[in-house]
């Protein structure tokens, strides 16, 4: 009993330590955003603001480009999510339902595409998008983001699809449903939890992406990560403005993640307990 209590206490302490280690950078980010610009530059830096200041947040109004960039990020992330889900669902369905070896080989190839560093495909993507007239458009950047997200989506969704009993689909076929009809009317509703999880991951990947957004946007569709990075100039870093924007940028992700917490955990553990 005593040893159980001791081990539980130890575990709690360990968890608290891990939370502290992971949470500290974010807490420091929030703290810095609430310091006055002078306070933010103090040497040595202080953990808490000497005096709470919302000046950094108030200054954001002076940067209309930054405000627009948040809207661009949202549009691109949503578009990328729709494109990825539209492509990944049928691909994952095919992998789950057709031939074991062919499906595995396909998944392996898909995994390999995830191993290619984005910088290696940046220039080819640029050439393709320019040829298509999609430079500096929401669709162009969203398509580029989808090249990263589709393999991830297929992997996640294939696991979900495999866990759906074939009998459900066969029953629908017996009742006269085509294969595509069965996918639409039976598989997709049953896999909606998995699709939601995949959509969350895809949205977050696009929301945070930097390189493709940089290469494929100019003034029209500049995304928030690039707009925030502009406050690091050749000679200085505007810590106050950058941290306040970073806090605002993180809010949608945090709120979204908290709301979808259960689904995310379900997504992470899919296939972990089989049999």
């Amino acid at each position, binding site marked *: 009993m005593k040893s159980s209590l001791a081990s539980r206490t130890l575990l709690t302490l360990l968890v608290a330590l891990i939370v502290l280690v992971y949470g500290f950078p974010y807490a420091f980010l929030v703290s810095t955003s609430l310091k006055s610009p002078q306070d933010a*530059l103090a040497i040595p830096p202080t953990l808490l603001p000497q005096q709470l200041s919302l000046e950094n947040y108030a200054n954001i109004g002076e940067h209309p480009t930054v405000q627009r960039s948040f809207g661009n990020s949202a549009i691109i992330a949503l578009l990328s999510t729709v494109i990825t889900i539209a492509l990944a669902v049928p691909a994952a369905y095919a992998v789950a339902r057709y031939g074991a070896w062919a499906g595995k080989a396909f998944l392996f190839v898909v995994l390999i595409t995830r191993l290619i560093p984005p910088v290696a495909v940046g220039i080819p993507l*640029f050439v393709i998008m320019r040829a298509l007239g999609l430079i*500096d458009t929401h669709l162009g950047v969203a398509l580029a983001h989808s090249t990263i997200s589709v393999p991830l989506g297929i992997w996640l969704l294939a696991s979900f699809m495999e866990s759906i009993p074939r009998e459900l689909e066969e029953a629908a076929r017996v009742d006269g449903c085509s294969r595509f009809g069965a996918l639409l009317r039976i598989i997709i509703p049953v896999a909606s939890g998995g699709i939601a999880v995949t959509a969350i991951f895809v949205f977050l990947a696009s929301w945070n992406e930097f390189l493709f957004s940089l290469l494929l946007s100019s003034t029209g569709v500049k995304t928030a990560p690039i707009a925030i*990075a502009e406050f*690091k*100039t050749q000679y*200085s870093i505007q810590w106050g403005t950058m941290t306040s924007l970073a806090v605002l940028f993180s809010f949608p992700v945090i709120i979204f993640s908290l709301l979808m917490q259960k689904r995310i955990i379900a997504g992470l553990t899919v296939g972990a307990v089989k049999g």
Partner: protein
Amino acid sequence: MKRICLVLAILVLLAPVLVAGAQEPVTLTVLVEQGGLWLQEAAAAQFEAETGHTVEFVNVPYGSVFDRLSAEMATGGSAFDVATIDVVWMSHFAPFAESLDDLFTDEVMDDLFASLVADAQIDGVFIGMPTWANTEIIFYRKDMWENADEMAAFEAEYGYPLAPPATWQEFTDMAQFFTRDNDGDGEIDMYGTDVKGGVADFEWMIAVLQAGSPGVVLDAENNIIIDNDEHVAGLEYYISHHCDMNVAPPNVNEIDWGVAENLFYQSQTAMFRFWGHAYRLTRGDSPIADLVGAAPMIAGPGGIGAIPGPWFNIVPKTSQNKEVALQLVQYLYDHNAMGIEAPLGLAARKSAYAQYADVEGFENLNPLLETLDSPQTIGRPAVADWQQIADEILGPIGSDALTCEHDVAELLAWGRAELEAMGYE
């Protein structure tokens, strides 16, 4: 009636010629980082009003200017009609840039600092028009340098009047004089200056030029000079404030430009060498907001010396609006002084700096002018692998020297061997 018909016929015949003569308004896309936007947007707006063309700035983070333009270069196309680039990227982008030889008249070259004229050309071809030039000058505390008690004490100790430092010896003397333990607790509360070990690859090069070297690392013909006497003297002087005198905060490797600036503006150093633009950006809420003085960079045995940090406007060969882009580059040069009113307060032309030099609030411009105009203010070698040299050779030499455990000459001999391995002689 016949006359009217004749006039109409002539007009119809001349119409294509007249239309061709009037330029269609175009939209020029200009790649910049924040500094380029600040310093050029006012002149660009005036260009738009006068010509009817549109100038659209694409503002990206500093390092992304290189990434973005490199991507465009690799694809053989360009979304940009003009790009404002750092001098260290000039060699890299040279094959991609249109010749600007026609813009560099004698009059233009007379109004530019010699180092900028040199940096503007690669292999004898002008590819970039300077848009602004920055360099390090001396920042000091006026309230300390002009304090009667301090002046008397300094003169009594060193035998000459206290004034902004002009030479290596004066800089060292004053750094020692103002390094103080104000409260007597055994810890230093204010250092005389700093040693920026975080940007060692750049900082010790400045002392090399002040020592009288004809260039840094490589001479004009790209021969190795990294181990000449001036490099030895420069590196020894650079580390002396840390290794021999304890007149700079000891955590040298953590001190880059940003940290050094904060140390000074928070009254933890009495003077420092820093980029001239900072004078105009002094924050109103700094404890020393009205107490900052500016002076030309110090002189070593070779005279006043510094490394300029100019930015250039280039026109990519792939621009679809080359003719108008060249017009814009010329216009930005002609109206270069407008940048001085912008937050960074910088320009490239001597006349632009001279125009504002005596205006209140621009006290940094005369020191900038004098430093930029010195013969020992020389740009970095225009070689494509300069960044590699800085990262893999100059940085490690500076860091190792700042451990105070190495023989400077041996470090520089290692530098020569590394350069030879890269193919230099």
